[in-house]
């Protein structure tokens, strides 16, 4: 069995045995298979869209920069809205109006842990706006997803999301929560689904709940600023 020219010492034989025992014999995890399938589909049908995997550390640094920029944009946008329309007119097309719609939409309303609701208020609401809320502070208010308990945490997140589960709820871009998630995280190409801002491993992210199919529902996690899911889990349908 030995491939070496010299006989192995007992210690080396023991190492070989231990390594053989530590071999991974299970199948590829379903979430990895789903991710690879998506990439493969992109490669096969839209070759230009499939991008190499972005290094996670570099992505986190970029996300932090994007988030700071997004926070600045939100603050500036709200300031402009208040200057242009001091009485917060209903025809405004600013982020403030979108957030106001979010309040009106009881079905898709974002939980208090929303990043755009530091101190529990939406950006469009009256009241003082934190002028220099650091990006990291926002992440601390998000629903936290732990890497080792991802499926469980996402199930909890879905439970807190509540609301309807009709096909309309999973339409791309519809729903105030989806718009708000896009505004906070930098609108990404996340596909159709219900978007919930979260913190994944300490990094701001969005979990996208896909429309349930049969007895299962797929949830993809995207880091802010990325259109490539970093994780994908399959849950029992709600």
């Amino acid at each position, binding site marked *: 069995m030995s*491939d070496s020219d010299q006989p192995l010492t007992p210690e080396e034989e023991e190492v070989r045995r231990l390594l*053989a*025992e530590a071999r991974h014999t299970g199948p590829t995890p379903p979430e990895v298979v789903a991710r690879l*399938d998506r990439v493969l589909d992109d490669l096969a049908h839209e070759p230009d869209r499939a991008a190499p995997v972005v290094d996670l550390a570099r992505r986190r640094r970029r996300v932090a920069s994007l988030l700071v920029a997004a926070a600045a944009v939100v603050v500036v946008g709200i300031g402009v809205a208040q200057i242009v329309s001091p009485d917060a007119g209903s025809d405004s097309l600013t982020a403030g109006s979108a957030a106001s719609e979010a309040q009106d939409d009881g079905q898709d309303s974002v939980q208090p842990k929303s990043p755009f609701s530091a101190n529990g208020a939406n950006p469009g609401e009256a009241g003082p706006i934190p002028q220099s809320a650091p990006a990291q502070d926002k992440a601390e208010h998000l629903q936290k997803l732990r890497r080792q308990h991802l499926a469980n945490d996402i199930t909890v997140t879905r439970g807190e999301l509540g609301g309807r589960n009709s096909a309309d709820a999973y339409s791309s871009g519809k729903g105030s929560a989806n718009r708000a998630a896009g505004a906070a995280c930098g609108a990404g190409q996340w596909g159709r689904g219900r978007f919930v801002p979260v913190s994944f491993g300490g990094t701001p992210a969005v979990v996208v709940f896909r429309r349930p199919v049969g007895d299962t529902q797929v949830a993809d996690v995207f880091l802010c600023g990325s259109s490539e899911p970093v994780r994908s889990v399959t849950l029992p349908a709600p």
Partner: protein
Amino acid sequence: MGDDRSDAELLEAHVQGDTDAFGVLFARHRDRLWAVALRTMGNPEDAADALQDGLIAAFRRAGSFRGEAAVTTWLHRVVVNACLDRIRAAKVRRAEALPDDLDSHRDRGSLATSAPADPADRALDDERRRQVLAALGRIPTDQRAALVLVDMEGYPVAQVAEMLDCAVGTVKSRCSRGRVRLAELLDTLAPGREADHPSPGNPAPSPPVRSTHPRGPPEPA
């Protein structure tokens, strides 16, 4: 899958524009490639990234495959290179990467040994496997890749040499040095060498509980 075409036929079909062929081919070898990526990278997250890198690279470079090696060897080469590139470029901290697939391992057992029925033995095996993988993450990347392919996956050295694009002697050397290093790291795993394991035999007698001072009223001064 139901596709009777050989690996080489699938790869050729992919090069000729068959949009489904590569998916069939990759799915055929996916689990083994995943195992290699997982053990080389040390954790599922980096393994998934590396496997995706390898998938993309293989998809795009299929036209450069010349048939000098088996398709599966070529696929392994691409994926292993993706792993090594990722480790080198991203400086993945393998020492921190403890295996987190032990739970799923429990019910599957191992090809080498059957899973012990005793929970205590199972826990011991899990702990040993955890230490083996942690030690594996501490040896040089090239040695690790060679050991994963030769000792874990059981590929012949000649095939691994093709996968790693190096000489057979280099693979042997890497394996040998890697085993020696692992033996040092795993020294405490060897039977009877555990540092905190009590010596066999009866324990040493405990000190007497009873006071050694004579009882009774204090001696008059």
